[in-house]
Structure formats: C-alpha cells, structure tokens
C-alpha cells in the first residue's frame, strides 16, 4: 500500500539515493558499442518478422507482399552482417565467433541463428527472381529451393526477433538487465510492427491486409510490454524517461500510435495513407531500439542505478 503523509498525499516509494559513491564514477562499464548495435537490433527484428510475414503472404496468396517481404528480409539481414562486423574491435577476426557454440552467451547463440538464417533468407529472396534468370537449370534449382528456404527462414525468424532481448538482458547494464522479463515482448512487438509497416510501405493496399493486422498486433504488444517493463524496472525505469533515451522512446510512442491510427483508418483505403502509416511504424521501431540501447548506456554511467537496487536487495 502506498504510504501517505499527513496531508494525505502519496509519498513516493522510490528509495532515496543516499549512498556515497566513488567520486560519482560509474561502477559497471557501458558496452563499448556504437550505433551499429541498436541498428542491428532494429534490422535483425525487421528481417525476422518480414520472413514470417512472407510465409503468411504465401499462405494467403498475396504474392507481391510475399516478394517484398523477402526482399526486405534479405536487405535487413545483409545490413545486419555489415553492422555487426563493423562494430567488432578486430573485424578481421569475426569468424572466431564460429569457434564455439555457447548457450551461456546470447551473442554466440545469435551468431549461429544469423549464420543459418542469412542464407535461407537469401535463397528465399533469390527464388523470387528466378524468372529473370536465363539459364533453365538455375531457375529450376531456385524453384526447388524456394519452399525449403522460405520455411527455413520463417522457422529461425522468431528466434532472430526475440534473442536480442536476451543479448541485452544478460549484462550488468542496469536498464537492460532489470527489464529482462518483458523486453523480449517489446522486441517482438517492435519487430512485427516494423515488418508490417514495411509491408504496407512496399505493397499495394489490396495485398497488405495481413501486413496491417500484423502491425496492429505488434503495436499493441509493444505498448503493453513496454509499460509492464517500466513497472518491473523500478528506480532504473527513470532512464527510459530522461535524456536521449527518453526523447527517443517518446518519439517511438508517438510514431507507433499515429501509425496505428493510420493503419486502422487510412491505410486500407489509400495507397499514400498506407505508405505514410507504414513509414511511421518503421521509424517507431528504430526509435524504440535506439531508445532502449541509450537507456542502458545511461544507466551504466550513473552508479546510483547499480548501487541502489543492490542495496535494497541486500536488506
């Protein structure tokens, strides 16, 4: 029960930050990662959810949407590879990731996911181009590989869209770890709304009904999960609402809600409305990923977010 003071006003239950730090220095270290990593969080999510949406489009007979989703997936995963390699301290040694497979390392797990997912997404997209190929043998080969590749990519896709939350969660970065229960749901929601948005952006209105429904489900999941995440983060949730992270997450919310309204009201009728709503959703997903990334970095820089939760768990 919330405490009340004499005048009946609620007294905030947030513990007072009364501890002595070492000259205000951080205790944990912020990840030495640049913009590549939040960009990857977005791109990997977009790729995964697009592969799933491609499968949905196939099943429902929306061929243009299916093709466009496959192209989105392969473009996004290709850019992901570049971002991930670029962010390494020793890019020439990126293959060292493949020396081991370690379930205690979400990065190792993720590397194996994208190692298998990438080629599947690639072949799946390539088979869409089989009519442009002159050689009969290659084109029939691409036809043969189409289904297995599409299903393979769609099978790995959910893991690709959700594991990145574990990647962040398994760190001592206060804002990432304290939200580990809900962050996977934030991330799959964000992936779905990005893929749905991209589908709306690239495909005709008549083809993109599933993309719209997928996006709506994504927005609902993301908004709900992020609210729940804020609650479980306790004191550390401050970092979601202040500084760069706060601005990004606010922008994300505005974009996803306006994207949602657009998707429901305008996108089914107007191609332009569909493009605008889709773009808002894609941008929202970018803002979410950069926002959560920045919240983590900010929480590492202030020792209070490391010390206070540990002190209250002590007593």
């Amino acid at each position: 029960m919330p405490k009340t003071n004499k005048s009946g006003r609620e007294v905030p239950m947030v513990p007072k930050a009364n501890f002595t730090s070492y000259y205000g220095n951080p205790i944990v270290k912020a990840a030495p990662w640049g913009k590549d990593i939040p960009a990857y969080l977005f791109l990997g999510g977009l790729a995964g959810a697009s592969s799933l949406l491609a499968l949905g489009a196939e099943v429902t007979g929306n061929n243009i949407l299916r093709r466009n989703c496959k192209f989105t997936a392969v473009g996004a995963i290709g850019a992901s590879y570049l971002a991930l390699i670029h962010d390494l301290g020793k890019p020439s040694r990126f293959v060292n990731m493949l020396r081991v497979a370690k379930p205690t390392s979400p990065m190792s797990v993720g590397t194996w996911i994208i190692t298998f997912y990438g080629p599947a997404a690639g072949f799946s997209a390539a088979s869409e181009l089989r009519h442009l190929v002159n050689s009969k043998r290659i084109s029939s080969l691409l036809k043969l590989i189409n289904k297995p590749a599409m299903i393979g990519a769609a099978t790995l896709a959910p893991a690709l869209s959700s594991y990145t939350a574990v990647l962040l969660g398994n760190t001592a970065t206060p804002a990432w770890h304290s939200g580990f229960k809900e962050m996977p749901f934030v991330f799959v929601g964000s992936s779905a709304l990005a893929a749905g948005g991209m589908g709306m952006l690239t495909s005709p209105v008549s083809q993109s009904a599933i993309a719209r429904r997928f996006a709506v489900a994504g927005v609902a999941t993301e908004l709900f999960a992020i609210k729940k995440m804020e609650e479980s983060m306790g004191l550390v949730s401050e970092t979601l609402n202040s500084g760069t992270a706060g601005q990004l997450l606010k922008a994300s919310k505005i974009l996803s809600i306006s994207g949602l309204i657009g998707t429901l009201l305008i996108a089914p009728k107007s191609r332009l409305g569909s493009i605008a709503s889709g773009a808002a959703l894609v941008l929202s997903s970018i803002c979410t990923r950069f926002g959560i990334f920045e919240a983590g970095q900010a929480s590492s820089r202030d020792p209070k977010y490391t010390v206070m939760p540990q002190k209250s768990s002590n007593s």
Partner: protein
Amino acid sequence: MKLQFREPGINPAVLSGWEDAPPRKGFFTDTSICIGCKACEVACKEWNHVPEDGLEWLGTSYDNTGSLGASTWRHVAFIEQPIAKPASENGIASNGSANPDFRWLMSSDVCKHCTEAGCLDVCPTGALFRTEFGTVVVQDDICNGCGYCVPACPFGVIDRRDGSDSAKNVGIAQKCTLCYDRIGAGMTPACAQACPTESIQFGDLDELRVRAQERIELLHQQGNKSARLYGEDPNDGIGGAGAIFLLLDEPEVYGLPPNPVVTTRDLPEMWKRAGAAALALIVGLAAASLKR
C-alpha cells in the same frame, strides 16, 4: 545448459574440465594496511607491458588512474574521508600523536576472478577462459573485440582497449591475468611481489580466506566495527571472488558494487521469456493470416 555454477565452494577450474588442477589461486587485498604507494600499479604495467592509460589530473585525491580498464589492471583508490571524532576507530590514522580529522581509505582494486564470471559466460569466441589456477584470462589471439564481456562484468573491470592501431592489442578486451605467466612458473604476481606492506597477498584461495577471517576478527576485537570482508563468501552473487578484500567502509565508497549478482543466473529464465515471445510472434502472424 549445465547449471554447474550453483554449487558453492567448488574449484571452478575443476568444473571447467581441468583434471588434477592445482589449488585455486587468488588474492587477499587487506586495504587496512595499504599506504597508497601505487607500487602494484607500476609493477603490473612493467611486467605485463600495459600501455599508458591517459595522464590526466582527475582531482580525485591522489587517484589519477580513475578506474580499472583495458590498460589499468590494478587501480589504487584514494578517499580522504572526513571523520567527526579523533581516529581511534581504524587503528591506522591514529598511530601518530596528532589525531587528524579525516581518515585515509586506500584500496588496490583488481579483477575479482569470479567463481561465476559474467565476462567468461558471455564471451562468444571462447577467448576468455578458466585457467588451471581457477583464474579468468583473455587469450589475446582469439578475442575479436566484440565487447560483450565489458557490460557483462558486474564490477566494471574488463574493457576493450582503444588507441592507435599500432599500439599493442588495440581493439581487444584486456584485464588482469593474475600474472598467468608468473604463477605458471611458480612465482608471485608482479603486483603482490611489489607491495611493500603486504596489503596484497597472493596464495591458495582457501588459505587466504582463513587469513582474511583471522584479520577481520582481530580488527573487530580492536574496535574497528566498520571493517568488513568483500567477495569472500562462496554463497554470494558471483559464487565468491578469487580476489577478496578487506574494506573499511561500504563497498560503494570504493566504487565497488555492494551486492553484485552474475546475470547468467537469470539466463535460463531469460531464454524462457524469449521463447514465449517468439511463440507470441508466431501466434500474431497466424492470427493476422486468418481469412476473415
């Protein structure tokens, strides 16, 4: 996934597959007798050929090193702590005739060589490994600089070295090796060897734990109630440290986390959550694909 880290008190070298591992090695850093000479910092730099880490004036007492990092593997913290009453409590500053109105807190910090090491758990290349001595070491030639170990360490110890490409090991993660080369040859690590007051004691961890216990009891008998051990408990959030400390104040005063827990302990739960979210995504797609 093997949840082998749940059994306290077991030599992690044995868990990592070392047969007939020697006794686990570690440090006991008794900060109550540290004089802040920084001989450990210098010795570590010299022996391990660690490059310069910035020569800034930080305005933080006599500490111009700041914190542990890729090019600082021993770090002496300095705190000039005001005290109200004459220093009878800590048994150190009161040795002189005049009773100062402050006390020195000086502590040489180092990698904890955790029993459950977050850095090692998350390393995707296997560059970080557990040695036969139970210590945690980066293999310079394998690390690809992914940087994951950096936020995974609950103490903020390890870091990726930056600097010009020509400098040694730039782009890869670096930290204390507990002088793997020296202890492998039966020698004492450079920092402990250089410590003139034996504030840094090296040895078999079991023995050091006993010594630390005796020392803390003595200090408590002498009335130093604020003295405490840090990292000595095999039941703590990292399964106990390989480098244990005797502190004279709360850990956070020295820039140490008060109650760190390796996040890998939550990892099975995290994978479950991610699995549920992945499933939700599939359900969402299926629902969206239904013909209406």
